[in-house]
């Protein structure tokens, strides 16, 4: 399946883009997505421990399965207010 991953705040300069396009096997999990991202963007590695993943505007666990068309986002620690 094709996935598009949105990237926010300082992670945009880490990966050099605000949207990443990936191909993953159908049913891949959030953890598998993060593994592929680390391989393609090694500079992300130190940031991933503090990064959460949102799927369709909700925080997702590492073992959540992804589906074609999901809106996936990398959410670094928030700092509103």
């Amino acid at each position: 399946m094709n996935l598009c991953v949105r990237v926010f705040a300082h992670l945009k300069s880490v990966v050099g883009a605000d949207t990443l396009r990936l191909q993953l096997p159908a049913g891949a999990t959030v953890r598998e997505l993060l593994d592929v991202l680390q391989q393609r963007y090694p500079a992300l590695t130190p940031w991933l421990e503090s990064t959460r993943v949102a799927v369709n505007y909700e925080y997702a666990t590492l073992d959540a399965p992804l589906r074609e068309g999901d809106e996936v986002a990398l959410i670094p620690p928030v700092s509103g207010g």
Partner: protein
Amino acid sequence: MRYLTREPLSADEWHREAMSEHSGASVEFLGVVRRLEAGKPIEYLEYEAYEPMAEQVLEQYIQQAVQQFGLSKVYFRHRLGRVRVGEIAVIIGVHAPHRAEAFAGCQFLLETLKRDVPIWKVRAG
């Protein structure tokens, strides 16, 4: 957008909200940009958001706060883009029957903002 805006914030709109006859307590928090950010003088902060998710997460937490603390009214606004020193970045206002729920509800919304709402300070200048 319901809770996020790029326009300057004023608490006037919240202050004009009438209180229900069953509400005995109103608590309001204003977050304002300070001159010193991380110890250095600044002129402004810039905020960015993952807007549709931020709106949805805020809506969920506001509904939870209304239920959990029996709030009769909630007002929440967060500004995006450039916010200058002395300007309001966030307004959280609540009405509740009693003081304990009003403080707890307002602080709950502020802590969830600081923890879970995808808004970031992306630049200080």
